[in-house]
């Protein structure tokens, strides 16, 4: 039961947040949309006229476009595969009774709190450096030639670094979901002699399906936008130039704002496809 006065007060309290976010979304997005139809080179003559959809066509026909889509798909897909698979296994493991569960949980979660520039540089130098990195020491210890990670296995390296950062997120969410699983149901299945694998397929996995979907959607949205990890390691070379990084280079490095803005609009559309799915799930949850 709310009175008329409290309703208008409520609207007043909501207004600042709505106005701020509306401005934050509409103003820059409108500008990006406007720039995307212009030939606009701030360092080389500035605004040079309207060009219609030329930037959109040029962005997707440039030689850098498809490799960047490929890099994006491989990185996002690879990280999702690793984090979700290992996340499920880790969550099941951490749900078992053990000594020092709290400490193990803290150890597993820690990478999520490391800032992206630190994890990028620590992995690049202290682990993946071909001369002094710990992995190269390890390779030499076993008599193998060290891998030059960030150039010869650049994609794998980036996937490893980013997976290390996101595994805690997947694990934590899946663990939370597993803990809500009715343990009596599992017990009954165990009593009935259902083998571990079938218990996993028929009880645990279906129970986790919603949480897995959420992990995939949220991670996809964040992973499409990864930037710092590439910025401090390969700078987009050796095939690691993702769509986000390509747009960044077009806009700030080569200062071709029109072209970059067209790319930006593509990125917005792409992110929105995943966001729509996510919002549908979250929205359903609100109704409950």
């Amino acid at each position, binding site marked *: 039961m709310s009175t008329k006065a409290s309703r208008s*007060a*409520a*609207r007043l309290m*909501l207004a600042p947040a709505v106005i*701020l976010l509306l401005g934050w*979304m509409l103003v820059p*997005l409108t*500008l*990006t949309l406007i720039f995307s139809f212009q030939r606009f080179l701030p360092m080389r003559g500035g605004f040079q006229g309207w060009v219609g959809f030329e930037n959109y066509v040029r962005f997707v026909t440039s030689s850098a476009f498809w490799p960047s889509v490929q890099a994006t798909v491989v990185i996002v897909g690879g990280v999702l595969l690793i984090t979700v698979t290992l996340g499920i296994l*880790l969550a099941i*493991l951490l749900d078992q*009774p*053990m000594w020092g569960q709290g400490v*193990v949980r*803290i*150890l*597993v979660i*820690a*990478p*999520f*709190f*490391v*800032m*992206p*520039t*630190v*994890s*990028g*540089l*620590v992995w690049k*130098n*202290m682990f993946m450096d071909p001369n*002094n990195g*710990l992995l190269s*020491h390890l390779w030499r210890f076993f008599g193998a030639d060290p891998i030059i990670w960030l150039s010869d296995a650049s994609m794998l390296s980036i996937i490893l670094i980013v997976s290390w950062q996101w595994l805690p997120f997947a694990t934590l*969410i899946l663990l*939370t979901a597993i803990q809500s699983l009715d*343990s009596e149901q*599992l*017990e009954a299945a165990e009593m009935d002699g259902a083998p571990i694998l079938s218990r996993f397929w028929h009880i645990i996995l279906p129970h986790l399906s*919603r949480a897995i979907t*959420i992990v995939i959607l949220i991670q996809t949205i964040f992973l499409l*936008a990864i930037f710092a990890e590439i*910025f401090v390691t390969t700078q987009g070379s050796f095939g690691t130039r993702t769509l986000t990084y390509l747009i*960044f280079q077009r*806009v*700030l490095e080569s200062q071709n*704002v029109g072209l*970059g803005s067209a790319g*930006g609009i593509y*990125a*917005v559309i792409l*992110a929105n496809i*995943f*966001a729509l799915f996510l*919002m549908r799930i*979250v*929205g359903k*949850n*609100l109704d409950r």
Partner: protein
Amino acid sequence: MARTVTTQRKIVTTLVAWGIGLLIFFPILWTILTSFKTEAQAIADPPVWFFFDWTLENYRVVQERSNYSRFLWNSIIIAGGSTLLGMIVAIPAAWSMAFVPSAQTKNILLWMLSTKMLPAVGVLYPIYLIFIQLGLLDTRVGLTIVLMLINLPIMVWMLYTYFKEIPGEILEAARMDGAGLREEILFVLTPMAIPGIASTILLNIILAWNEAFWTLNLTAARAAPLTAFIASYSSPEGLFYAKLSAASTMAIAPILILGWFSQKQLVRGLTFGAVK
């Protein structure tokens, strides 16, 4: 009823879990250890583990050479400021949607969420341009505002899910007793909302501290926080592992500690209440 487990199985689980936990934590542990070594020890092959001459030299050098405390201060101001500003806006918004819901509440919440999904790179140049025009480029004020805006949807959502759990009957009882809106908020709601508010603050400090798109692109020398300071080590000269480690340890230590307190809140905050 808890499942009965054999001691043997528990021992195996414990060993495996600890092994994996330490493996995942290892890069952080190694960074912390290396920060106390000399540069020569830092690259030694075979590696030195615990038995070396522990030194604080790197911490001193990092502070002297790059004026670490200034970057730290920038991080504190930007992360703290954006969280504080955001809370001032987010608390009333979340309060109103949780306790005076209207037909649009759900749509507004989802729309707020959608602004969080906007890829930063898509609006990079406009923001850059606006910052130049307003003289906000490389200022703490500018960065504080941007980080406040990108985290505002998460703050509103998190607070909303917490406020939703406060039973509405309590508010109605207070209203019956003649409490006005102000008393209602101050004496009834606030005490019950404090845990949720604290959690939201914690998570947002962490997110703002680690944000590394806008902080790298909108700062140069003056307003650069720790993320940008660490990035300056990407083109180093000479031996630098121990110093990189010292700088990294200092940059992540505060947030690692805060993070450990916020495990549960992390799930709620980052899944927008979809997983609790």
